[in-house]
């Protein structure tokens, strides 16, 4: 057992087994002697105790509910503390001399980072460590951006690479998905900006050409399958979903805005091409997700397929069709989609959830 997720899954398995065993005993399907029952109970009690001690898992439903609450509180707390760091510095920086500004900007990420690493050794639950890690990341972002402002430096996408590196170090070191997402967003921004400047454009305008995001999408999807993330709960899924969103987002934009493409063809042709590409890639991701048992890939692909389809329905029929008929068609399409996904789920391969 190497991750908290695996430990929690084992605990959940034990609880499910205990509930099913109780039913079997009530129905007298499986008679067990008192000795056998005690042996099973003792084994499960000892295992639960060890896992709770080593991984801080939820040992019952109430603990699970509280954990969910703690996760939400941790997430909101992390964002709020990060914002507080920013606004605190902006409030008082103008009253400091330049050496004081530079010293504080350097000390803040250093001290918070050292504290985060120290805290990770003593914080069994990990929630406080994740909070501290987020504050440390905020301090580093402030460090780089404020130095740029104080010394009137020319803005550059390199800052995003530095932020990505720090976020990923914290994400892997402290096992925190929030910082993994932050790091991937920074990395995608950096890669897209670099591809934008390769065409001679100013880097800030990289979003004007959504195709700049495709190399980043490919990089994330390759990383999702090339890097071993078994020790990190949810990291592989985060890479997969981030990669797909980075791929699908620009396709959706370009399927409605051909003028934003690098291709020097007629806009209608470009939009049509990206619409077809969008439906094909969504279909492929659903197929691949079912084949490999990745529910997240299936759901992301299905969601994008539906969004793309509905935007086309709107383009084709909103102006010309009576509204009741328009929404009837949208609804019937959703029902059809449900049937298709249910059928795919029943094919006996790794199941899709059937959610649209």
């Amino acid at each position: 057992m190497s991750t908290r997720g695996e430990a929690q899954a084992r605990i959940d398995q034990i609880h499910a087994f205990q509930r099913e065993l109780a039913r079997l005993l009530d129905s007298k399907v499986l008679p067990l002697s008192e000795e056998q029952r005690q042996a099973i109970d003792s084994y499960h009690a000892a295992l639960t105790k060890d896992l709770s001690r080593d991984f801080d898992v939820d040992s019952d439903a109430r603990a699970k509910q509280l954990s969910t609450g703690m996760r939400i509180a941790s997430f909101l707390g992390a964002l709020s503390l990060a914002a507080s760091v920013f606004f605190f510095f902006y409030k008082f920086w103008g009253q400091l001399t330049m050496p004081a500004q530079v010293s504080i900007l350097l000390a803040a990420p250093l001290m918070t980072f050292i504290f985060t690493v120290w805290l990770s050794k003593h914080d069994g639950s990990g929630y406080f460590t994740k909070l501290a890690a987020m504050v440390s990341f905020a301090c580093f972002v402030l460090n780089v951006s404020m130095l740029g402002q104080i010394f009137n430096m020319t803005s550059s996408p390199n800052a995003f690479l530095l932020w990505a590196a720090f976020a990923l170090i914290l994400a892997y070191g402290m096992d925190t998905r929030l910082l993994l997402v932050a790091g991937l967003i920074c990395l995608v921004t950096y890669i897209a900006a670099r591809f934008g400047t390769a065409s001679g454009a100013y880097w800030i305008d990289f979003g004007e050409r959504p195709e700049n995001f495709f190399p980043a999408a490919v990089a994330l999807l390759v990383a999702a399958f090339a890097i071993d993330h078994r020790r990190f709960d949810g990291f592989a899924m985060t890479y997969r979903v981030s990669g797909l969103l980075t791929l699908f987002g620009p396709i959706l934009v370009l399927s409605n805005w051909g003028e934003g493409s690098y291709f020097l063809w007629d806009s209608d042709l470009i939009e049509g091409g990206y619409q077809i590409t969008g439906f094909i890639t969504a279909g492929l991701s659903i197929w691949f997700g079912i084949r490999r048992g990745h529910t997240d890939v299936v759901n992301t692909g299905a969601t994008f397929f539906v969004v793309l389809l509905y935007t086309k329905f709107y383009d084709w029929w909103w102006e010309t069709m009576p509204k009741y008929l328009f929404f009837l068609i949208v609804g019937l399409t959703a029902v059809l989609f449900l049937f298709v996904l249910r059928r795919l789920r029943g094919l006996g391969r790794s199941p899709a959830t059937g959610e649209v």
Partner: protein
Amino acid sequence: MPWYRARTFFLGLALILLTNAVVLGGVWYNRSGDPDSTLTLTERELASPFNYWHGEENSGLNLHLVWRMEQSRPQTNTPGSVYFGGEGDWLDSTKLKELGISIHARSPSPRNGAAFNSSLPADVLLVLEMDGAAYRRTLERACRLPTAAAPDAVARQKNCLEETNRSSRLFVVDAGLDREALRKKYPDRAHYAVMRGQIQASLIIQVSGRHLTGYVRGVASDEIDVPLSMRTSIGASTPIMGRVYGQQGKPFAAVVMIGRRLEPWLASLSPGVSQSN
């Protein structure tokens, strides 16, 4: 310490220290040796940004470079108003071609603007001229005496006063990709600064035909931080305000240096007298 925690610690520490070393090293390099140019500006050329979130939540003070482009044709519908746009007489299709900026047709027989691709702003080097020929020509045009019967005589008189006493004398007069060539062309480092900026092309479609023109989208590093020592040196307890949009600010004289990386900094800031020609 477990190996993964130790690795995290040393990697994170190294990244923070290396980042700050590189950034501060770059600042030292930019400000070392002789500056690329040294301009003496006033409250006419440096203003507090009027859309910036100053005041309660931000105690910092930046001054914003107010630059202009020379336009011999009237650009606005309001007679006598000062032009602050990015289009200029010198930024024509020839200059755009020299900078490698173009717009292409998406279809063989393009009929409207949508049939052309939109250009993205290109990263270029801009030449800024302080109180030079471009300003003198603009002033001369603004102060040409109108005929007594001209309907816009009053407005034009106002414009002449505005140009004489308040408008920025800092003009973007040229652009290029080769820094050495630009500096050779404009060797006076006290009146000409080379800075990074962005130029974008736009296509004007008229009955007479299509016409490619460009405009300066922005000047990089045009927000200059004012250190605390300079704010207090003139005895002001509140931030000095330059020309905020629509306001007459306190006069001051500022020496702005542009360094080896073409990044500016404020070398000195002192109270000045009102700048009228």
